[in-house]
């Protein structure tokens, strides 16, 4: 099937079927299961990043006007670390884990063996198109799977580069990239996968999960949500402000799933907070942030229109206290702060995913928990405070994928913490060993011997056997003796 317009074969259901068939055959050879193969692939990925960093940075700049530092650090360096961690620990992760056995199955030994799930699909997002494509793949490779990657078409330069680099550096008989948009994704989703990891939004996540249901394919969904930041009054305001700015506008200009979405603070404190923001924002991005090279642009005109709509809503447009300038042609919106937005405004109910920061006011800081819990569970929640009790209450009452106290977003870089959502912000987790686990089946193995065959298991069933079974389950040696002697209740 060829499209006359593009002169490129269209990737349809048949193509997807063939692709999966090919990968299943590769997986069946056992190639991806070997430690050497996994190691070679991960090392090749590190090499790819070392050799092609300028091209990657350029593609990210094309797609998102992402500042070089953000690309180098949040996409490339983080991914390199992920690879290195997997290379260092993979042997250990691959080893079976011993499991305890009890009197009930004596004599026996048990272990849990990690095995690859098979052929997995990774669907990535546009905002960190490099990281969200390859980071899951690190886990999938470490766990020994064959992989198809579907990068986001909304970041086309990165998608194209990924297709080229994966073909050049990795084993194309086992790891493939399929570029494209809705039709290609739909064709892929019709196939049977052994696992799907999807990063993106809730609407598409439902479609992915429904497609997975047809084949009973387990899924990991890395979604988003409105990540709130509670700001208490007795803090180091400057540090807090800077950390919020770094997490908001410093992360792809607010277009990140864990970016602070909105702030909750006390009525009396708001002005001080906003003044601090104004000051630090100018220090970071200058007097004309529209011209700052340290801010990503809005990814495309659809999202620009979406964000403009949020700002133009009647009850909200008058609440802008900083920024609000837009450059439609260059898809730029300056860091914008809104004060005292109504709870029922669009901007307080939809995930913003952009450079707008509403500040919602409460009378006392404890009221912020109800505000957060009245919405869907976010991917992350942040709290700035020095009060121990408030921290404890925050941790106990706020349900989110992850929490950070006195900082924002940095937990992403912590490989010992599972990164994932709950409720509407997703299911499953990855990073570090959690990535390996996400793409593994943990097979339980029980080794039994022939000695000490417990006759109580077998018919004919008698009252005596019932008594003995009771004792065996209770794990009481005395009970067993009594039962054997016929002294216990049957």
């Amino acid at each position: 099937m060829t499209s006359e317009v593009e002169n490129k074969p269209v990737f349809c259901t048949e193509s997807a079927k063939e692709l999966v068939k090919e990968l299943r055959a590769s997986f069946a050879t056992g190639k991806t299961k070997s430690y050497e193969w996994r190691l070679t692939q991960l090392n090749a990925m590190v090499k790819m990043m070392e050799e092609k960093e300028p091209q990657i940075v350029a593609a990210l700049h094309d797609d998102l006007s992402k500042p070089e530092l953000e690309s180098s650090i949040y996409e490339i360096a983080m991914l390199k670390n992920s690879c290195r961690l997997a290379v260092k620990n993979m042997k250990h992760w691959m080893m079976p884990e011993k499991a305890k056995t009890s009197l009930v199955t004596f004599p026996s030994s048990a272990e849990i063996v990690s095995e690859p799930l098979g052929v997995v699909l990774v669907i990535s997002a546009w905002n960190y198109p490099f990281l969200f494509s390859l980071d899951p793949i690190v886990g999938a490779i470490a766990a020994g799977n064959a992989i198809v990657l579907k990068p986001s078409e909304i970041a086309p330069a990165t998608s194209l580069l990924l297709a080229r680099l994966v073909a050049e550096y990795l084993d194309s008989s086992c790891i493939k990239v399929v570029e494209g948009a809705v039709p290609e994704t739909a064709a892929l989703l019709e196939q049977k996968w052994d696992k799907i990891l999807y990063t993106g939004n809730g609407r598409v996540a439902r479609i992915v999960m429904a497609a997975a249901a047809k084949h009973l394919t387990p899924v990991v969904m890395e979604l988003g949500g409105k990540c709130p930041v509670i700001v208490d009054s007795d803090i180091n305001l400057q540090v807090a402000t800077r950390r919020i700015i770094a997490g908001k506008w410093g992360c792809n200009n607010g277009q990140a799933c864990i970016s602070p979405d909105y702030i909750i603070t006390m009525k009396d404190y708001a002005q001080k907070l906003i003044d601090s923001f104004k000051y630090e924002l100018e220090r970071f991005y200058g007097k004309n942030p529209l011209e700052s090279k340290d801010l990503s642009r809005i990814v495309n005109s659809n999202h620009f229109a979406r964000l403009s709509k949020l700002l133009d809503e009647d009850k909200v447009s008058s609440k802008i206290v900083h920024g609000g300038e837009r450059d439609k042609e260059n898809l730029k919106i300056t860091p914008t702060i809104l004060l005292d937005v109504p709870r029922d405004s669009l901007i307080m109910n939809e995930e913003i995913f952009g450079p707008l920061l509403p500040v919602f006011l409460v009378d006392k800081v404890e009221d912020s928990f109800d505000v957060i819990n009245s919405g869907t569970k976010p991917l992350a929640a942040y709290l700035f405070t020095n009060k121990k009790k408030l921290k404890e209450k925050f941790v106990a009452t706020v349900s989110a994928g992850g929490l950070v106290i006195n900082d924002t977003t940095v937990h992403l870089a912590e490989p010992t913490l599972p990164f994932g959502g709950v409720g509407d912000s997703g299911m499953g987790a990855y990073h570090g060993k959690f990535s390996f686990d996400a793409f593994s089946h943990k097979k339980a193995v029980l080794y039994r011997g022939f000695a000490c065959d417990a006759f109580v298991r077998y018919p004919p069933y008698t009252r005596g056997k019932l008594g003995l079974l009771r004792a065996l389950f209770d794990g009481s040696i005395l009970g067993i003796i009594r039962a054997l002697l016929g002294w216990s209740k049957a």
Partner: protein
Amino acid sequence: MEKSIAELRETFKNGGTKSISWRQSQLKALLQLINQNEDSIFKALDQDLGKSPVESYRDEVGVLKKSVTYTLSCLEKWVAPKKAEVPLLFFPAKAEVMPQPLGVVLIFSSWNFPFTLALDPLIGAISAGNTVLLKPSDLAPACISFLVETIPKYLDNKAIKVVAGGADIGERLLQLKWDKIFYTGSPRVGRLVMAAAAKHLTPVTLELGGKCPAIVDTLSTTPSKAKVTAKRIVGGKWGPCNGQACIAIDYLLVEEKLASALIELLKKTIKRFYGENIKSLKSISRIVNEHQFQRLVNLLKDPNVADSIVYGGSVDEEKLVIEPTILLDPPLDSEIMSEEIFGPLLPIITLKNIEESINFINSKSNPLVIYAFTEDETFKKRILSETSSGTVTFNDSMVQFLCDSLPFGGVGQSGFGRYHGKYSFDTFSHEKSILHRGFYPEIEPRYPPWTDFKLLFIKLAYEFDYFGLILLLLWFKRS
């Protein structure tokens, strides 16, 4: 029904199920429920499935008591946050992972182990601090009546509810939003459950089934081992609810030359365990209902299949009894060899060489368990690395179900997710990451405007190259 669920949500929201003391009290109450009502439970299981008290204790009452006791002894440990290592770069910082209840969970259980499959997941859901709606299968009516009447007498009615009903109730429940759905049953319905869950992005655990094979490679060892093998095979086929179990042995794989010896041993063992013929059958459950009975009888209707019967085959429609039946090499494309049997029919497939069993098993979808009776260590390793199943049990059947330290769940068509022991607690929890940071020291290079120095600094920081960082700072200070 919507009102009940709203009450569950309210109870959860008000924190009614969060405290360890609430969870402990509910678990203790559940233990009391079981201890004080054993006879009623035995009676209900006998009524619905013809289970003997020994089978009921072994597979349901005993399992549940063990599960509750184990959970109670470990609960405080499980609930405690786990520390996570933090690199020096983040100093001072503290990282931990804290389990949190998911919220309001829905548990669907199956009819073959109506108590275990309902209450074992319930134990997990309670221990993790959730509110629960339990929807048992309507094919075990006496057991359901018992649960509906008795659970409210012992457990917190505002947090744990049972609803009786058929598929229509199940469908209605699936339209609503849950924080987790735990389903035990068939792959067909598993798909429907997951598709419904997808609308609300509800995570699911699916405990399904499959054709669990038993590879038999121990007949040429000592006679006593051969005898034990036969007992464990018979016990693993007809013992659990007369083959109507997701982990029952579905079919056997054995070398041609050993087939007749195996069949003889099995016949002897069956007669000893269950009686000489269908008229004197004892210590064995019956088929649950007419529908399942007809389904099983139909599997034997194919003349080629009927011809392969070497033992048993008699049925009693009135009593819903099918005697233990052994078939030797039925056609591989027959329904009995492609569908999960879930009943007292045991096909034996012969192979020239026992190693062929690996390819045979891999030609079918991943089962919940693979049983292998063998003492060949190399063969064991091959089975482990070249096949995929939820669990592998060597030299026995069924007992892996009793191991609280082993995850119990499937892979591929046999399901995903797992439970038992701590895995039950985990399956109903969200593991929340928490990072505590201090305000000092501040790392200036985190913030724009970006410069080459800051880029280099952060690069070194990400590589945890502390030495490089110090050098950089010194060089910077100097220049």
